[in-house]
């Protein structure tokens, strides 16, 4: 499934597309929420690897505004609960991710993003 944690790690890699190629814009999405086991240590450990603004904006596109615009310095339980939900429980099952720079469209089917490029698009 394309969860927002995965979305936060994917960039467009089409030939010549090296700037403004992240984050990919979610389009025509079918979203489902599936409960996941809460693990505070994982969230704390993963936090420094998140592109925060990309995550906040992607969550907003999917209708979740629970995250603060800036990554908080003090991490409390309520914040971790919201982060857990946004990163790990919102699944994009169908739709596409579109590159903000070159417009390349990466389809999502059965919860799996297809990031393959055609031969002439490979950098």
């Amino acid at each position, binding site marked *: *499934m*394309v*969860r927002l*944690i*995965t979305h*936060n*790690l*994917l*960039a*467009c*890699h089409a030939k010549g597309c090296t700037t403004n*190629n*992240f984050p990919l814009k979610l389009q025509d999405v079918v979203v489902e929420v599936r409960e*996941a*086991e809460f*693990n505070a*240590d*994982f969230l704390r*450990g*993963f936090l420094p*690897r998140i*592109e925060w603004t990309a995550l906040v904006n992607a969550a907003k596109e999917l209708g979740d505004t629970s995250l603060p615009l800036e990554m908080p310095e003090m991490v409390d339980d309520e914040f971790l609960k919201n982060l857990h939900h946004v990163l*790990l429980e919102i699944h994009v099952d169908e739709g596409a991710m579109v590159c903000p720079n070159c417009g390349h469209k*990466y389809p999502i089917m*059965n*919860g*799996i*993003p*297809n*990031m*393959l*490029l055609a*031969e002439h698009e*490979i950098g």
Partner: protein
Amino acid sequence: MIPTPDLSHLKREDYDHVYEPAEDTFILLDALEQDASELRELTPRVCLEIGPGSGCVTSFVGSILGTSCLYLTSDINAHASLCALRTGRQNKVVVDPVTANLVDPFRSRLYRNVDLLIFNPPYVLTDELEVVDAQEQGGIAGAWAGGTIGMQVTDVVLDQLDELLSPTGRFYLVAVKQNDVHNLQRRVQEKFNVQSEVVLQRRAGREHLFVVRFMR
């Protein structure tokens, strides 16, 4: 003892499209199990398996590390991505598969951010044209067509090792004798100063299989 993942949900038809776990898979599971407590101590947050096939290996790692880690897989074969997802579910491991060529779409965001990298490459000796054909078709042939010395795809991954591994990152690679394991280890050491060790080796029929563990 960590149980081998339950693959009973996969049918004959699935194995027409994805590689069915075999000796090379099992030696990798054994190597990971051998390192299980060390791996838990390292608390990896990002695990990335290239070419998961059935999803057996990632699910196995999931049963070692639980929810303390993110399990990404990347396979050129969309059916393998689906199997990795289903095998995860069957074994209560949440797997996030991506259909892609090696690590391409992760390269910028996972720059030195992979804590656990796993690759059981296609290593059967085939000629170069067959490799290109097999990878382009994106089907099961991609799982076994390995190249002149079974190394073409492995070489691409090894060249990216320095930009993938996190400071405490590890890479588990399955190799066969024909890969010239010693030479491969030396090349990575010279190029990136990444150390490696053969952590397990065994004979399986005509193959001599190795698991090489790389770490900074």
